[in-house]
């Protein structure tokens, strides 16, 4: 059965959230709206304010100013039973058995312990960890423990799932499994918010994103809208090194090897092609590329923020 989250179609809303820690402003006026049933990505480099924003949305910390509304409630803990949360810094009791750890996290959200254990056994079996159900967490590998905590996040079948850097520390296979799990939960009606500094995950999964840089929302909207902020990129290779055709390409065009790279002019491809042909360019190849989310991110958050993200973790 689908888990519906109907609050004017918005599952989570933040308006001008601000968080100050001593004399540092970690989050500076973040506003966002997460549609119910969507997969929503918070993008930004480490220290941008993603985790602080999520912690405010979940009620772990209170904002210094601004308002939040989660599943229709101003106090997130009022709907704790309908929310699942995987924190960035994973934590489980080392001596607890895997099934008990999942059931305990569920019990914190109001799921009876017995039912939690039953579901834990099912989930562990589904994720290939059935034989580890009665083993202490300390005996599990890091990836297994991470999976156990993720299963604890969804064991009570929440309407809203918040995942803070869920892909961090996972190998490529487990990253793929996690992507599939996120899609499955979304298909069942859950709203999913996850933060990441790996743009590829957001590009593959998200319908909407918020790009956060230096505590502020630099962009909030659909992924194609983010891409739409950039004009298509033209890659052109010509036989002629120079000639009248050069006036057809913008002054900001740059050389990459033997190619010219520039944004498609406002008039579109036809006037460009005509000018190149009539100007004697001798076109060898001409490609018009749709910009990726990474390009959009660079344009929106700035080259330095993009470089910081790239330095944190290589894109798989």
């Amino acid at each position, binding site marked *: 059965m689908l888990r519906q989250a109907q609050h004017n179609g918005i599952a989570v809303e933040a308006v001008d959230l601000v968080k*100050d820690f001593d004399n540092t402003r970690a989050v500076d006026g973040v506003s966002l709206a997460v549609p119910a049933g969507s997969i929503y990505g918070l993008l930004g480099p480490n220290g941008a304010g993603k985790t602080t924003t999520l912690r405010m949305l979940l009620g772990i910390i209170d904002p210094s100013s601004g308002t939040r509304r989660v599943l229709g409630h101003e106090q997130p803990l009022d709907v704790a039973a309908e929310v699942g*949360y995987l924190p960035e810094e994973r934590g489980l009791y080392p001596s607890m058995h895997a099934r008990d750890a999942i059931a305990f996290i569920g019990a914190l959200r109001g799921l009876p312990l017995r039912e939690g254990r039953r579901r834990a056994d099912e989930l562990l079996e589904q994720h290939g960890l059935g034989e580890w159900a009665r083993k202490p967490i300390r005996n599990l590998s890091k990836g297994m423990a991470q999976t156990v905590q993720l299963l604890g996040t969804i064991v009570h079948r929440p309407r809203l799932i918040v995942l803070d850097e869920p892909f961090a520390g996972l190998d490529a296979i487990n990253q793929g499994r996690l992507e599939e799990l996120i899609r499955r939960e979304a298909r069942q009606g859950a709203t999913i918010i996850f933060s990441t500094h790996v743009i590829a995950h957001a590009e593959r999964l998200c319908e909407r994103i918020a790009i956060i840089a230096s505590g502020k929302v630099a962009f909030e909207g659909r992924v194609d809208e983010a891409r739409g902020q950039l004009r298509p990129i033209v890659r052109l290779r010509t036989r002629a090194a120079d000639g009248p055709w050069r006036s057809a390409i913008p002054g900001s065009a740059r050389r990459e090897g033997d190619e010219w790279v520039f944004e498609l002019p406002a008039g579109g491809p036809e006037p460009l092609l005509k000018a190149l042909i009539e100007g004697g360019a001798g076109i060898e190849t001409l490609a018009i590329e749709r910009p990726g989310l990474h390009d959009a991110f660079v344009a929106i958050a700035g080259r330095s923020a993009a470089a910081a993200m790239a330095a944190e973790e290589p894109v798989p």
Partner: protein
Amino acid sequence: MMKLLRSAYVIGRRDFNATVLSKTFLFFLLGPLFPLLLGGAFGSIGAQVASRTETPVIAVVSSQADFDRIAAARERVAGALGEPAVSKLLRYDPERDLAAQQQRLLASTSPPIRAVLTGGLSAPHLVGSVEPKGPTSGQLDLILSAAREPAAEARLLPVTTVQQSSGSLVKDRALTAQIGQMLLFFLTILLSGMLLSQLIEEKSNKIIEVIAAAVPIDALFVGKLFAMLAASIVGIIVWISAGALLIQLVKTGGVQTLPPPAVGWPGFLILAILYFGMNYLLLGAVFLTIGAQASTVREVQTLSMPVTFAQVVIFGFAATAIGEPNAPKAIAAAIFPLSSPMVMLARAAEQPGWWPQVAALAWQALWVVLILRLGARMFRKTVLKSGPRTRRWFGRQKASA
């Protein structure tokens, strides 16, 4: 409120199971054995050393007949004063050169001789490192007087023994009060330390983030506090049962023969558990609040040290009430919330009457509620660096971090 209690129960149940079902809880249960065994072992060694070094040895240079009477008199004195308190006597046959014999005996190291008694019963004379009116010479005076009158043995004071008298009861009850206070104090300190360790473990393994996102942080505070209380009450019940069983097996007449506290044993044990609960909740709340501000064991040790010292001072304050439960200082200690449980437990051992106990429990419960509320508030503000805006004592409002 129901949500808070339900959440506290989930956390408390986890903590209780993790504590009681762990191997370390067995060590906790065996804990009281270690001080008893060590105390017994070191006490016996200490007593032996003390008896060797502190009980004076007197060399008696006399005939065998005189010495037998002196030794018999010494036994009577030792029976009255206790064996370790009375000088030991060793007989030596008189030699021709008495002065040289005295010198040699006083220089002897095996055994080390404090003084030499010469002249037998007729003309006794003591030579040695003793004062003329000191305890050693005084004892020998008594012994020689008794030895000169052997008929005194026949004039023993007629005695009829009863099981209890007010004097013996006061002494026994004061001892019960003292032991009760000490157990309360040490157990509370021990458990508060364990509570802190658990909190630090949760903070360091980040599980606290998962908990804080799911339940009010006050529930974490209350759940942890009551879980450890429940675990320690399990421990106390085990100890009381084991102690009673041991006494039943070892002592003739069993637990029936133990001197009863003023409120009786059942009442005293119930009060002991209640006062332990109060004392633990008051102190545990303080420790947990401290733990919320620390992120490492070292920080906790640094922060909790002043509180531990303060608790020792409070323990000393409470101890002054033993023997004088109605003195002004005892009443002051009974009113002061942090010493009240210890003082009132001692009072239960020494004074009958239930209304002061009921009033004290109500008073302490009020303080437990106040301190728990305050502690939970501070805990929430500090454990995750969260909380409502706070008003500074001076100047403008400041947003809390």
